[in-house]
């Protein structure tokens, strides 16, 4: 069942203007995020997944800038009345959830009032490094209530209570005492929980999680992911999960976007991506996952040959061409493959499927 569209990204281009040249970190990306669903964005380091996420909130670091494209935010009804301190969770999958307002986030001034009202309230974000993503010199309570007080009319006491409630909800023991602690007194997993509590403090419509489990150990990783799923059921937000871990994708995703060098290679629902990958890049990614017990006769693990090209020296035609096993000379190095639709919300950027 399809739920209403929340974010529609159309031909997004975010470039970094450096002295050495222009880095086309995101170069023509299209995808859609649906309400209450989890979208996973996968790809190697430097493929532009984080920059795409940051473009949505307009927090791309200098000298990066959105140069083209639209990020259409279909603001759900319930949020147009947010800010009155009401804090009720939305029923997931409600069909009558009509959208009233469509905002092009890419067109907003990155320092302006409109985008600031959306950050932290409609769309919030958690980051990779819970160690450094929280201020070392402010208490946990201070940092959580800051967002609450910024976006709602709650008074100090109410904001504190709300923060305690959130901390309890994300599984932090003795939340009342935790308000007064500093991040450096908490473990990595606890800090990431604090980050999640902070991100959910204003009941956002979309939670962007930028590799939230990369910096924590495996047990904590599983707990954090499980927590995110629980919270999604309860709060009803959509999640955009950025990861390079295909195991995480299999566990969490409804929809998947595979990115390579600033472009979408392939996108679709999680089942078709895993069971019927079309793009050669997706296929090799899936082959390069080590599997326990499968390779009895000590085969070498498949890896994708070659290296990710230098960002200043991008290949012509298909970005994946130089590393592709199905490379067609004269075709793949001439044409940058357009999106070839394979079904609803399913498309691949590869010339192999041109005739279909």
């Amino acid at each position, binding site marked *: 069942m399809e739920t209403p569209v929340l974010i529609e990204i159309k031909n997004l281009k975010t470039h970094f203007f450096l002295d050495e040249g222009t880095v086309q970190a995101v170069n023509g990306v299209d995808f859609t995020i649906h309400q209450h669903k989890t979208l996973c964005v996968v790809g190697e380091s430097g493929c532009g997944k984080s920059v795409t996420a940051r473009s949505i909130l307009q927090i791309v*670091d200098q000298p990066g800038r959105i140069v083209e494209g639209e990020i259409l935010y279909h603001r759900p009804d319930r949020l147009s009345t947010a800010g009155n301190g009401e804090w009720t969770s939305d029923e997931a999958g409600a069909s009558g959830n009509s959208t009233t307002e469509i905002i092009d986030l890419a067109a907003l001034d990155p320092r302006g009032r409109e985008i600031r009202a959306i950050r932290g309230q409609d769309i919030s974000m958690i980051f990779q490094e819970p160690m450094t*993503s929280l201020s070392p010199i402010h208490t946990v309570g201070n940092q959580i209530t800051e967002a609450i007080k910024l976006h709602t009319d709650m008074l100090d006491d109410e904001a504190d209570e709300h923060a305690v409630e959130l901390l309890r909800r994300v599984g932090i023991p003795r939340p009342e005492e935790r308000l007064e602690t500093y991040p450096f007194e908490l473990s990595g997993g606890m800090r990431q929980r604090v980050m999640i509590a902070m991100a959910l403090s204003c009941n956002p419509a979309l939670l962007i999680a930028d590799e939230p489990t990369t910096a924590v150990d495996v047990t904590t990783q599983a707990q954090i992911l499980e927590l995110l799923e629980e919270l999604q059921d309860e709060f009803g937000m959509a999640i955009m999960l950025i990861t390079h871990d295909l195991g995480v994708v299999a566990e969490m995703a409804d929809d998947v976007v595979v990115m390579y060098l600033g472009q979408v290679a392939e996108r679709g629902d999680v089942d078709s991506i895993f069971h019927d990958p079309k793009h050669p890049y997706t296929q090799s990614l899936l082959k390069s996952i080590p599997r326990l017990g499968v390779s009895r006769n000590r085969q070498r693990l498949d890896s994708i040959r070659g290296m990710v090209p230098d960002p200043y020296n991008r290949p012509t035609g298909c970005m994946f061409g130089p590393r592709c096993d199905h490379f067609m000379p004269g075709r793949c190095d001439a044409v940058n493959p357009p999106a070839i639709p394979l079904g609803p919300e399913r498309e691949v950027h590869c010339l192999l499927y041109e005739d279909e």
Partner: protein
Amino acid sequence: MFQFLLRRLLYMIPTLIAISIVAFVIIQLPPGDFLTTMVASMAAQGEDVDSTALQALTDQYGLGQPVHIQYLKWMQGIVLRGDFGDSFGWNKAVSDLVWSRLALTFVLSLASLLFVWVVAFPIGIYSAVKQYSVGDYVATFFGFLGLAIPNFLLALILMYIAFKYFNQSVGGLFSPEYQEAPWSWGKVADLFAHLWVPVVIIGTAGTASLIRIMRANLLDELRKPYVVTARAKGLPEWRLLFKYPVRVALNPFVSTVGWVLPTLVSGAAIVSIVLSLPTTGPLLIRALQQQDMYLAASFIMLLSILTVIGTLVSDLLLAWLDPRIRME
């Protein structure tokens, strides 16, 4: 917090004892003593010195005794009676000579420190936030200029300008009519009217280096992920800037107080001579030239105490500012 303070105060005791020994030993290091210097200068003027009178003076000042005995006697006087000994050159108790000058030095240092902070703080922030802008380059240019020009040269230039174009005498800390007058509101006002020249001169180098420090620190902090977190929360840029990165960047700013204080005091010496300020610097240098040992040792000792106190103050400020230090 109380424990921290107590611990720091206890650490100060051995530090100060060590400083007093070093100070005393340094004073004794040059060959000869006050009397040989005196005899030499008298002989240079063609006067003869009676050897029995010389012996009497040696006994009177206790100069014949071993160094450690002299040191212990000196310390005994300080600890038990607050008596820093007598100045040979001035024929006065050291404490009579020192306190008024020390107070003025302290006022001058404090005023310079405040000046340095008030100027360096906004410029440093601006330089970091608008890195590589015209304003940043201008601040950098004047910053390096301020660092590179020796204080005494700046003093001479300022004096020249003040005299030539404003017909104003900038030497000293008081106008002639207040020079010997007892303290009054008029004298205080007069002091502040004169204070700004040495404050600017002494503060220039410190300002320049603090601007660079603030800029470098803030540039580091501005790129930290917690800044992005705060931005993703929807905070306005300026509020975000002052609440997070500037707060963190303040740490080294505050810890510099410890070493800015002694540089201010020592930097003040040469400037004070040029500007003929009634501060500690000129007196200390004269005492050292004359081998006026109790006066010089007391000075070095007192300035060291100031430094130790400055370090303590900066540590306390740091602990107050940064929970990570407080919790240790």
